[in-house]
């Protein structure tokens, strides 16, 4: 999904010129010494590449690994704190679309000499690309390559195991019957496991499933990522006749649970997400 792919393992030559996923040309003059991440997934990647010391700021949602929680919070759901970011004096801000930066802020920060790179992801492959890109930007090409190949092999193992299983149909509720449709990261996770996301054919992005479609398709597995408490039964009686629920293939995780953040975070822990989904879909 981005243009930095060749020469994965070599050292990065600065100035580095890239076009990010939103089409912005960014030229990075030197190896960034001070990095701000506004996205929990990016933060996880940065830590996984061993950039603990370079990170000078994170967002309030960055809660993994634990070290992230002790970094200054410069970004929150209502946006970035410009003044604090400028004081933190970063060389680069890395982010993804779910935690985008308002246009004005972007202009101002760029004027103050801060580079901004935004990433998108709609598949597992995109996430691996993002890791490679971040590795390239931060001159951690080797670490990134190692991480990616480790992940590829883990993914391959789970996919192989899944291939031997009877294909299952899956529904994932992220709240209010909204569900990841085609072209989403979670949909790709399910696809990787050889399972069938029943919302896949309905549309792309986050969409709301018609209740009757849910009943009609009667998925084998129902995963709810919007429970008030993990383990809750569904609040709506109307879906309690689904076979997933009758067959104990209903899994609910609260918003704040580790499971929810693992499944919905396009970072290095996606292999854990695959394992978790595998367990839920096919059993341990």
């Amino acid at each position, binding site marked *: 999904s981005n243009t930095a792919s060749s020469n994965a393992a070599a050292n990065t030559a600065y100035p580095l010129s890239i076009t990010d996923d939103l089409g912005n040309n960014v030229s990075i003059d030197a190896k960034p010494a001070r990095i701000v991440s506004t996205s929990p997934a990016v933060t996880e990647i940065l830590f996984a590449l061993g950039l603990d010391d370079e990170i000078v700021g994170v967002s309030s949602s960055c809660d993994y690994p634990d070290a992230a929680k002790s970094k200054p919070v410069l970004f*929150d759901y209502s946006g970035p704190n410009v003044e604090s970011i400028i004081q933190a004096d970063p060389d680069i801000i890395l982010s993804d679309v779910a935690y985008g930066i308002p246009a004005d802020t972007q202009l101002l920060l760029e004027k103050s000499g801060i580079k901004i790179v935004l990433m998108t992801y709609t598949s597992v492959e995109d996430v691996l690309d993002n890791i490679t890109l971040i590795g390239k930007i931060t001159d951690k090409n080797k670490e990134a390559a190692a991480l990616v190949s480790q992940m590829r092999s883990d993914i391959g193992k789970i996919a192989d195991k899944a291939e031997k299983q009877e294909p299952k149909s899956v529904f994932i509720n992220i709240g209010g019957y909204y569900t990841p449709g085609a072209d989403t990261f979670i949909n790709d996770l399910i696809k990787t496991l050889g399972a069938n996301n029943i919302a896949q054919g309905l549309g792309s992005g986050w969409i*709301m499933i*018609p209740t009757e479609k849910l009943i009609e398709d009667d998925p084998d597995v129902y995963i709810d990522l919007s429970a008030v408490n993990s383990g809750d039964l569904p609040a709506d009686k109307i879906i309690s006749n689904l076979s997933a629920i009758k067959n104990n293939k209903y899994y609910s995780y609260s918003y704040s649970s580790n499971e929810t953040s693992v499944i919905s975070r396009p970072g290095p822990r996606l292999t854990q997400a695959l394992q978790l989904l595998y367990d839920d879909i096919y059993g341990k």
Partner: protein
Amino acid sequence: MKKIHIFIFTAISIILILLYTAAGTADIAFLDTFKILAGKLNSSLSGFSNSKEIIILNIRLPRVLLSYISGACLALCGCGYQSVFKNPLSDPFILGVSSGAALGATLSIVLSMPNTFLGLNITALMAFFGAVITVFVVFAIYENSQRNSTSSLLLIGIAIGQFITAVISVLMLLNQDNIKDIYFWTLGSFAAKSWPHLAVVSVYFVIGFCFMMHNSKNLDIMLLGSQEAQYLGQDIYKVRRHILVITSLLAAGVVSVTGIIGFIGLITPHVVRIFTGPMHKKLMVYSVFIGGIFLMTADTIARSALKFELPVGIVTAIFGAPFFIYLIYSSKREVL
């Protein structure tokens, strides 16, 4: 208000309810719908034998009916509020019902309350209480102030509503994990609603409708202004309080079940008033029909036009607004 008109509107409503029950994304033949509906009438099936029956009888039919009743309730509330405040911008949520309900729902989510309490959905319950308490706070402030004008009451309602909305934002800020859930709740939707929801809202509707019809003359008189109303024997403060309390409870009841559904409560009374004029008996009866038909149609479009569901509020505004503007454009009678 001729009997024949009421008969016609009732007939249209029933026909539409049946037709709309036949619409949906699931792959069920048009005629099958009616076979299933007729089958239910003939035999007393205790369970449902297959997913088609479940979809028709347990999902679509109650949802169609619920959207009808909810539309009727909201339109009725709109009539009440607009007359009490003599302000064309008043809608059922103007005294803070919607923000109060959202606060209740937010609290239930943020405090991780259990799903049900005495068999009742806790979020709906909390939403209801949130709405009711808010309206009572608004009233208490108003009645303890030295003010008589309904404008002051409106403004207190708006201020409290905005305050609560801000409080919700703070709660969301402090509980960022739950943001999505709260957001989805406020959106308003009939998805996954079934007979129990319908039962609850129907009870609210029947009580609310009877009360409002019983007060139709009071509402007429109220439009004359407080001095005239008093000359004609109305205890305006009492009547105003009663009507606002009942409409607020009705709005709270609907909101707690369906979430916040705007536009319909504001626009329906204006649309109907163009045809009926200001006398409330006519106005309210037709508002109930039009509000019900309108919201039911919007929800049917929302759930069956595309493969995925659209938020019903979007459909209401996309179709309702141009229709309303056309009416304003083509008719001469002033609105309120």
